[in-house]
């Protein structure tokens, strides 16, 4: 088994052309990014609206849970029969599945903002929009990005499953390898897909840390000091 995997990775044929590793990785990354951008454009404004106004929270959580329960393979095959185009079907499926985590993260982020802070901002004369963009969003940003991280994991996994309806990307190695019982290729596909997910998650975790506003970081450090004192 290990031998087959090493053979696969060291064969130069697997690193070139339309079925080579660089092409497949970039394809996979492309689907993930495209779906992430589309899903964010839909989910972030809704999450901000619901979180800021507090209207429709129950509906948002409920519908998010229903979409989370949707089987990815069922959704993708259904969309494929509907559109008979693997790229269109897969991208729509990916967007649908990426929306709930981003929505939940945005909503939870705004909900977690201390009411006293919002009150203070209001007392200082800040209007709704100013409060949202200058107070609530910066404080909520780490949780919003937490939602984006969850969405990215979901997207990497689903894009691999969507190879079943003919999508390119790393899922091709998994399914084409299974079809011809080439376990070296299957294992290589699994390793590459897992690595891509892990690398993206580590990168986003770093971005998440970097985006915590300085004031919030100082406040947290202060709270820790108080606890330890």
């Amino acid at each position: 088994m290990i031998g087959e995997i090493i053979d696969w990775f060291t064969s130069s044929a697997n690193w070139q052309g339309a079925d080579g590793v660089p092409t497949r990785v970039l394809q996979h990354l492309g689907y993930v990014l495209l779906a992430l951008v589309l899903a964010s454009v839909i989910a972030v404004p809704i999450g901000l609206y619901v979180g800021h106004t507090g209207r429709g929270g129950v509906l948002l959580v409920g519908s998010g849970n229903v979409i989370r329960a949707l089987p990815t393979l069922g959704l993708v095959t259904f969309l494929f029969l509907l559109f008979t185009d693997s790229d269109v079907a897969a991208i729509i499926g990916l967007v649908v599945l990426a929306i709930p985590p981003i929505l939940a993260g945005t909503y939870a982020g705004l909900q977690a903002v201390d009411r006293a802070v919002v009150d203070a901002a209001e007392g200082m004369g800040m209007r709704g929009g100013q409060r949202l963009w200058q107070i609530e969003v910066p404080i909520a940003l780490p949780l919003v990005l937490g939602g984006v991280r969850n969405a990215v994991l979901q997207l990497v996994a689903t894009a691999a499953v969507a190879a079943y309806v003919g999508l390119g990307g790393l899922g091709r190695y998994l399914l084409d390898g299974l079809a011809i019982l080439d376990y070296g290729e299957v294992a290589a596909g699994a390793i590459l897909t897992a690595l891509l997910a892990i690398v993206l998650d580590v990168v986003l975790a770093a971005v998440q840390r970097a985006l915590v506003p300085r004031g919030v970081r100082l406040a947290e450090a202060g709270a820790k000091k108080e606890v330890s004192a």
Partner: protein
Amino acid sequence: MSFFDELGQYLGSASNREQIVDTLAEHCYLALLPLVLGIVLAIAIGWLGRAWPRARGVTLVLANLVYTIPSLALFVMIPSLIGTKMLDSINVVVALTLYTAALLVRPVLDALDAVPPAVIASATAMGYRPARRFLTVELPLAVPVLAAGVRVASVSNISLVSVGALIGVGGLGVLFTDGFQREYFSPIVVGIVLTLLLALVVDLLLVLSRRLLTPWDRTTAPVRTEVAV
């Protein structure tokens, strides 16, 4: 022919109905056995984490790593890790057990940490030995927090099982691959609806058993933490 005629025709066939019932039963087994095993595993890890605090960091990093691995990749990696056959249903059970445990390790540790030290001290003073104290005092008090995590894990397991259809064992997922190959909407729609219904029924059962397991909680105000985002 309208979709509903097609659906009527599909459901009219006895062999189709038999397939639906069989795949539904398999789906329950493939989703719920790992849920139970994963809960037990996470509790065992939580106990170890309490007894041996140094292991905590490593456990949480490992859990995070497992959770990052895309489902299809994990499904096909299991055989080479534990030496099972590629099409064995054990692979799906092991993979979903790992996901469940990975998801629950943090809630279990948080929940156990939240047990008031005074309660543990009283139990010790009453003569409870550590193992009995853990099972009859600490664990029951951890149920509310744990239950929220278990609900998320159950929904995610039920939806992930169908990905197993790509490696030959997928419960209702077989209806998706079937429908895709025959370009036939009915099995796919039936599969999606049954997956959602199963997730809903199991969720209601979990809410019910949480209430039964925590009778002392019932007199207090409605628990808002249940709206886990």
